[in-house]
């Protein structure tokens, strides 16, 4: 019997090594696998590269991992949080974390390419700006394009709304964002969900991420559980 569910966050994160490239879904706090990313603190991996749209806000999730000094490099499109300087901005100003800034659509497409077996692609985004300086461009059909490379991860941390034991996933509203793309782009795709359902419950037409892309699923407490 195929059963990708594991019993704890620690079990879910087993094997993520020092120096790993970790893809972290979410747009701001929505759809971000906070239980998994905070679990990396106890898991112990160091010198991590985190690929995410944002660089963490407040004091939870990615901000906690950054504050614990486990992240060497952040690849993101928008490294600003809410009001005031974030944990990331303080570390960045102090020279304690590296930043690779990537336009949001280029970030999404580099991940999509990695998951689809495409090593590189040309995009019009960023041509004529500082991000294209010194990099390969090519004219195709009279327009200039910038060469961008696929961005695969060693692991992806995904937040799903529902999951089954095969790793089939659905997402909730705008909590989808980068999660389905990142789920395809890592060698080890790890999912946290608040709704673990029996096989067959998810309508085939409603499954957004088919289980082929998923390695491990862990059920985490809902905010309501935590208050109970």
């Amino acid at each position: 019997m195929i059963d990708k569910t594991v019993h704890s966050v620690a079990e879910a994160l087993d094997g993520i090594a020092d120096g790993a490239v970790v893809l972290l879904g979410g747009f701001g706090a929505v759809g971000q696998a906070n239980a998994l990313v905070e679990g990396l603190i106890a898991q112990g991996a160091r010198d991590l590269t985190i690929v995410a749209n944002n660089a963490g806000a407040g004091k939870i999730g990615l901000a906690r991992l950054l504050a614990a000094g486990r992240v060497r490099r952040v690849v993101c499109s928008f490294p600003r949080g809410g009001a005031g300087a974030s944990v990331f901005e303080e570390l960045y100003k102090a020279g304690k974390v590296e930043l690779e800034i990537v336009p949001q659509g280029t970030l999404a497409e580099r991940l999509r390419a990695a998951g689809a077996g495409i090593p590189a692609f040309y995009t019009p985004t960023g041509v004529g700006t500082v991000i294209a300086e010194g990099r390969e461009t090519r004219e195709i059909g009279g327009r200039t394009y910038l060469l961008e490379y696929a961005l695969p991860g060693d692991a992806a941390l995904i937040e799903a709304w529902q999951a089954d034991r095969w790793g089939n996933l659905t997402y909730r509203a705008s909590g989808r964002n980068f999660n389905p793309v990142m789920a395809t782009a890592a060698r080890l795709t790890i999912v946290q969900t608040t709704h673990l359902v029996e096989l067959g419950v998810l309508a085939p037409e409603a499954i957004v991420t088919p289980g082929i892309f998923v390695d491990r699923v862990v059920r985490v407490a809902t905010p309501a559980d935590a208050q109970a």
Partner: protein
Amino acid sequence: MSGGLSRAEMAAWLARDIPEGWYVNLGIGLPTIVADHVPAGREVVFHSENGVLGIGPAPAPEQVDPWLINAGKQPVTLLPGGSYFHHADSFAMIRGGHLDLCVLGAFQVADNGDIANWTTSLSDTAPAIGGAMDLAIGARRLWVLMEHTTRQGLPRIVRRCSYPLTAPGVVRRIYTDLAVIDVTAEGLRVRDLAPGIDFATVQARTDATLLPVSR
């Protein structure tokens, strides 16, 4: 700055020019409020780069769904017919030329259509691009909505952007508190003036040379 339009009036000025049926992305900040000013009964479909099409009005506080936000990370609602999709699909809509219009704010726009709207200094704190570079080159048309001058009274419409570019040569039209200006092959042509504002006043607050309204 006396005599110019309020931010709500600027947004309404732009909103009147969006035809029914257009798919439109509104940038964060001032452009976001354009959605509140689309004339009643006109169907315009608003896109947000975090994977939402068919955004409706802001929810009442007791109706906020924490799972449903826009690109500015504000709570929003979804209209009947709305849909969700992942980030690669969302930017396929943007980069693939499927949006009729994108409205962005800007620090500067040049008379050749260059836009600078993501950072004022590369040595500043962590620079943030977000979706701006993809939106600027991807939508079929890019309109800018911004105050005509900075808080210090310096022109934002310039001969050449001094800030790092978001994209070169992409702006088609500029809406400010003073005027609507088209970016044309001949240069910047004033299309409309705010009530009580004359051409000379607009030119005096603009670094680039303006062409008068065509009659």
